[in-house]
């Protein structure tokens, strides 16, 4: 429960929080608390995501959703750190990690807040394509608001050379989103069609964007029929 206090700190008093990151106060504890709480929140939401298929899928998604965000973080962290360093940033690796984790933690808590809504739609209108698009929409929305915290944090923590590094940050966010969606596709299924048996992973091939468009058309053609 104490790990949840970091959320309160970020959401209620972000200026103080970013100040502490800039000064390096209690960075290890912050990183630990953000990791614990974001993993828990994503795991809980993963349970709901997999509910369209089976309990096994729920448990699998509860593990895979936090893993998705953490692996994407691990893959993308050095890029942001070294590009910032290249353009004169004084941020250390733990500070960069703390700022990215801030975005992930905010994304996680916002995502969890959507869990009752997601379950509500699955209980009242159990349409698989709609459920999939709804959850993709929720994760996109919460991811966007989470990343605005990263932008605010980076701007606050770094004083000099902000304009160049802001461009780098936006480019990194684009890469982060791209890596994240490909990672999600690699780790799929997170939902699992109700009529299909449980699968831990699917074969490689296809991509995330094509599948979202196909789901959209599937839903639309079902409505028009």
């Amino acid at each position: 429960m104490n790990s949840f206090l970091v959320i309160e700190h970020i959401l209620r008093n972000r200026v103080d929080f970013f100040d502490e990151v800039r000064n390096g106060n209690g960075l290890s504890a912050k990183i630990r608390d953000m990791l614990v709480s974001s993993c828990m929140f994503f795991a809980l939401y993963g349970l709901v995501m997999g509910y369209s298929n089976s309990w096994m899928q729920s448990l699998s998604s509860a593990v895979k959703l936090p893993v998705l965000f953490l692996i994407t973080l691990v893959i993308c962290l050095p890029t942001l750190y070294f590009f910032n360093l290249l353009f004169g940033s004084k941020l250390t690796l733990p500070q960069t990690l703390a700022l990215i984790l801030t975005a992930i933690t905010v994304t996680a808590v916002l995502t969890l807040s959507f869990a009752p809504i997601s379950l509500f739609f699955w209980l009242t209108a159990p349409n698989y394509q709609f459920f999939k698009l709804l959850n993709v929409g929720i994760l996109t929305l919460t991811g966007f608001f989470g990343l605005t915290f990263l932008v605010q944090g980076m701007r606050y923590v770094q004083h000099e050379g902000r304009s160049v590094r802001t461009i780098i940050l936006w480019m990194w966010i684009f890469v982060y989103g791209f890596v994240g969606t490909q990672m999600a596709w690699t780790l799929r299924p997170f939902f699992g069609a109700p009529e299909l048996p449980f699968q831990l992973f699917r074969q490689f091939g296809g991509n995330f964007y094509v599948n979202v468009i196909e789901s959209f058309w599937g839903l639309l053609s079902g409505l028009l029929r």
Partner: protein
Amino acid sequence: MQTIEAYLEEVASHLMTDMVTETEILREVEEHLVEAVAAGRAAGLSTEEAERRAVAQFGPAREIAEQFRQVHNESVSQAVLSAALPVLLTMILRSAVLPWLHSLRGWPTGPAPVFFTALIALALLVPALAIRRWRYGYAAWAFFSVMAILQAGSTP
């Protein structure tokens, strides 16, 4: 005049919150008191006198309990529980408890208002008694559980 232990017991009796929150609050109060006792000891007081002074300075147990309760009840932990618990409980109810009841021989084959009313009353009563301060999450749980039970009742 009270010792720290007795004071903590009195604070606990006024808290009326779940066990996890209660433990957190009591730990926080104890930390403050221990610091105050250490300061008193450093000022030359005996342990008993330092404890008595720390408790007296901290304030009446009822007021302190009320202040902490307000702070903790507004905390993110409460909000997280309110979002997560109803969802988890509903998933367990719908996927495990209701199918198990369905497999029992006593499950009514036709409309049985008494059976489903009893089931709804049970689903609402148990969390209400178990988690006394769970106000916001309880409303969500009430909605989801009633809906899941009604759905189960409408399917053959």
